[in-house]
């Protein structure tokens, strides 16, 4: 009982539509679901629902529409841009119980999954069949396919394979009015406008995906993983640019600077060189002869650009350990300081070295520690500002430095986000990348799906171009845990 009869009625109605034990409105649940993996606070969750079917999601949407309530979908809550943070006490729809792999068709290379399926679980399931799901975000062991679709997530191996958008064929969506629509189709070239493409990366502002048809990718016959060490970060960045310029597109190319390498090595003990200023983790896959050739090309280009050491992973175990290090890099920094702010911008590959130098200079100017770990092949930077939030004034410096990093990336011809999304993090920077006209048209597109602006309101589009009154969403009601 919340003390507010309207809220109690809402909770009761949701409980009746689902099951009373799959709708929660207690302080503990609401406090936890007010956050995701980002640094953003100020979220307030309303009733939290755990639907198990499309019809239950429909029921939630209809109840919300009838009462004029907002709805925010949530997967594993590993987002870093605050996309799943509930603003203004909306109904939170957790997709974690919709976690069945419905069908796998290896002939047509399609898998139908529910949105709560964990990314790595899908690849594990496909493994014995000789397939995997190509997008592999660093959080793949926990993040959900639904979340990947919402954020159009990338990952180290998206360099050659493309990000989530390239691997989604069709999406069953519950629209904000409760209607179900099928976007896209299993044909290679479905007729009509590509509404599937609009939905991917929609960050929950267009509706909730309830079934997703993804393309499954055959496992490569051979893989080679190289670890190159450099005395300068810039040399690593230049190597990446030169490899692609030479016509070789590896499966993945990832750079980590020395600070992050030291933290990671302490956790995984993968044999990362802790004395190198930067390491480049490169992977090539394909036919055996081809991968040997590509590996040699990368090694040669690396040496020409100043690589001090080139190591080839001897076996699958060594390879797995190197990747474990790369993929847990963000979590490992707590060994250095308790808080981090992970940025996500993309710059042209040729500008990587230049922007990196600016990032280090910006952090120095604000007396902040910065670490760099990034999807170098895509020009996707992930500067990691590290701090202790208990230190007075530090959060302001972090935000200032973040703004300057974004400006530097945009000035270099880059974009706001590579894969984390806009969420609440980059909203206020949207007008630096888009004109007022652009943003108004984006708002119109959004309203075509959600005319009353109740699906994840207050995200993506900035104040003035969003149908939601963002300020009122940020007001914190009483009776909510601090």
């Amino acid at each position, binding site marked *: 009982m919340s003390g507010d009869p309207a809220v109690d009625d809402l909770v009761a109605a949701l409980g009746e539509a689902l099951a009373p034990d799959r709708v*929660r409105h*207690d*302080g*503990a*649940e609401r*406090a*936890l*679901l007010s*956050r995701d*993996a980002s640094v953003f606070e100020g979220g307030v969750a309303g009733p939290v629902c*755990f639907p198990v079917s499309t019809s239950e999601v429909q029921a939630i949407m209809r109840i919300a529409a009838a009462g004029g309530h907002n709805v925010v979908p949530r997967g*594993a*809550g*590993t987002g870093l841009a605050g996309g799943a943070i509930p603003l203004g006490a909306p109904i939170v729809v*957790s997709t*974690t*119980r919709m*976690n069945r792999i419905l069908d796998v068709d290896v002939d047509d290379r399609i898998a139908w999954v529910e949105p*709560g399926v*964990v990314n*790595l*679980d899908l690849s*594990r399931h496909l493994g014995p069949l000789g397939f995997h799901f190509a997008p592999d975000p660093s*959080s793949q*062991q*926990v993040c959900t396919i639904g979340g990947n679709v919402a954020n159009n997530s990338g990952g180290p191996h998206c360099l050659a394979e493309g990000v989530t958008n390239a691997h989604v064929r069709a999406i069953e969506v519950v629209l904000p009015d409760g209607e179900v629509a099928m976007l896209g189709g299993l044909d290679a070239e479905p007729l009509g406008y590509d509404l599937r493409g609009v939905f991917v990366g929609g960050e929950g502002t267009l509706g909730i995906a309830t079934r997703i048809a993804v393309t499954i990718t055959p496992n490569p016959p051979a893989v080679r993983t190289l670890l190159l060490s450099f005395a300068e970060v810039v040399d690593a960045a230049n190597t990446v640019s030169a490899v692609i310029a030479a016509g070789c597109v590896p499966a993945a190319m990832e750079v980590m600077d020395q600070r992050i390498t030291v933290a*990671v090595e302490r*956790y995984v003990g993968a044999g990362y060189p802790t004395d190198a200023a930067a390491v480049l983790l490169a992977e090539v896959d394909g036919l055996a002869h081809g991968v040997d050739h590509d590996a040699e090309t990368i090694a040669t280009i690396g040496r020409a650009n100043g690589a001090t050491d080139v190591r080839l992973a001897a076996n699958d175990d060594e390879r797995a350990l190197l990747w474990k290090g790369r993929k*847990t*890099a*963000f*979590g*490992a*920094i*707590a*060994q250095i300081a*308790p*808080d*981090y702010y992970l940025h996500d911008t993309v710059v042209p590959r040729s500008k990587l070295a230049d922007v990196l130098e600016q990032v280090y200079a910006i952090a120095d100017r604000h007396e902040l520690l910065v670490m760099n770990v990034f999807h170098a092949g895509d020009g996707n930077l992930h500067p990691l500002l590290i701090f202790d939030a208990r230190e007075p004034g530090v959060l302001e410096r972090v935000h200032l430095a973040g703004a300057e990093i974004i400006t530097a990336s945009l000035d270099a011809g880059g974009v706001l986000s590579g894969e984390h999304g806009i969420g609440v993090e980059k909203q206020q920077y949207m007008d630096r990348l888009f004109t007022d006209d652009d943003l108004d048209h984006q708002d119109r597109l959004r309203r075509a799906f959600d005319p009353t602006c109740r699906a994840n309101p207050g995200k993506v589009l900035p104040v003035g171009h969003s149908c939601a009154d963002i300020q009122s969403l940020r007001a914190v009601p009483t009776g909510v*845990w*601090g």
Partner: protein
Amino acid sequence: MDLGLASDDLDKCVQCGLCLSSCPTYRVTGDETMSPRGRIALMRHVQHRGAPLTAEVVDAFETCIQCRGCEPACPSSVPYGHLIEQTRSVLVASGASTPWWQRLAFRQLARPRLLRAGTTVLALAQRAHLVPQRLGLPARLPLRRDPHVVSGRDVYLFTGCVMDAWQRDVHHAAARVLEAAGCGVTPTGDAAPCCGALQAHAGLLDETRRLARRMIEQLEPDVPIVVDSAGCGAAMKDYGRLLDTDEGRAFAERVVDVHEFLAPILDRLPTVDPLDLRVAVQDPCHLRHVQRVHGATRTVLAPFVRELVELDDDGLCCGAGGAYSVLHPALAGTVRSRKLAAITRASADVVASANPGCTMHLAAGGCATLHPIELIDRALSEERAPGRPPRRSRRRSSRG
């Protein structure tokens, strides 16, 4: 409310969420309050922000199985096990958790004669069909137990509480295997009746400390203490931290899991024909996530069976959790269903698991489970006297 948690430990969690999939209760509920990240956030809310200790908060803490599968998954090395143990102990002290009847029950674990008498009563009741199956007891508790035998003083074999009353055959098997490797074995018997692991999980840390001190006093120094129960071994290896004394640390150094002990001296065991079995290894959490010596189980078992097969669930907990399966039967059952599905996928003849709680919990779910040491013992026995268990020379009987 002060939960007595070190801020440094709490602050290590950067809420990245990489732990979520390795948490059995999150896996089956998809609910953040049932996850390590969520539980740590609740500890912060209670300790730092004065959030009330509501029924839901207590439930979030109590439903943790304490498998500690989240620890190896955590890149920031948050000492989750210690955080939840300390939280539970404050809940107990404040009366919010573990009611008096549970505390009374936990206290009986250190009373071996009572435990054995109770077991005999239960075993008789079972045979009269008076014990409902849903209690999850082993299908047939033993009516009587062969006495422990001292064969030398090279190693202690820790025999413990419930395991000694219910699964003494496993200890006998362990003793035979150790002797086959040339070690004289002294079973600890009633001299060290209980390690205190279950009490620690329930937040009764003072009781665990009392039992730890008693064990350290009772056992002679310098003799390695071999343990064939993963949960007990993990608890005893933690005595140094628990007691924070030199004696505690020295004792903990001597504690060794039976597989960990045998792995480097495997060549001392006779070469025998392997059992014609495909064996799935189900790692007890406290062997894999806490002691982290589960590799030794494979090393030791491999030569004695036709084939070892891994489960494909990354060492997710089976839901046993010491007394957890009794206190939270519904959730423990759901977690077990997930494990049983993984076991089915492995299509093995038999499952090997080195912890009494896990073997009982899985057996109650209809899955035949043996201790790895029983399989090794069987392979060695068949070689020595086909169809008959081997005889051992008896020097003198120990108590118990």
